[in-house]
């Protein structure tokens, strides 16, 4: 189970252009820091794929084991950990977030699609 879960989390990190591991979903955010990260990403026009870590504590354990980052939310762009809410907000404020998104995803990264949510549970 745990190995399968880890593989699914790794697939999301590697294959989704912008992965946001958060408490709750974009439609129903359950934590202030997850909300801050989501807002900053939306303002930068990022195509967000959200994963709710709350349905099973094992998600958070496996995620932190992979990333070496202890807290939620965690934002990955192009498979790379960008950071948590504070870093994403700070990068957004300086305009660096948009540069990071462009560098990883191409100049036309802005998506008109709404956020989507995927599950890592079987």
């Amino acid at each position, binding site marked *: 189970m745990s190995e399968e879960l880890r593989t699914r989390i790794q697939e999301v990190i590697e294959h989704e252009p912008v992965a946001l591991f958060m408490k709750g979903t974009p439609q129903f955010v359950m934590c202030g820091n997850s909300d801050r990260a989501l807002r900053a990403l939306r303002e930068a026009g990022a195509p967000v794929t959200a994963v709710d870590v709350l349905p099973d504590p094992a998600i958070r354990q496996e995620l932190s084991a992979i990333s070496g980052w*202890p*807290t939620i939310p965690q934002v990955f762009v192009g498979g790379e950990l960008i950071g948590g*809410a504070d870093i994403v907000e700070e990068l957004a404020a300086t305009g660096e977030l948009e540069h990071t998104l462009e560098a990883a995803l191409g100049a036309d990264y802005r998506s008109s699609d709404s956020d989507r949510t995927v599950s890592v549970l079987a």
Partner: protein
Amino acid sequence: MATDPLRTLLEHAFPDASELKVEDRTGGGDHFQVTVTSPRFDGLTLLDQHRLVNDALAEPLRDGSIHELRITTRGTQ
């Protein structure tokens, strides 16, 4: 938990910090804002700067004493 134990952990990790603040954001003892200015951050990415703070507070993060952590780091250059 109180802010003092967190402050002590950060003082051990950043003995040369020129600024070190721990605030209890809600008064409930589990939502904290920490602010550290240290030459150790010079030349590091924000990600690596925050990793150092997370490492210093690994124990209270792991055992759930810290429910929410906000971090502000600055180098000295």
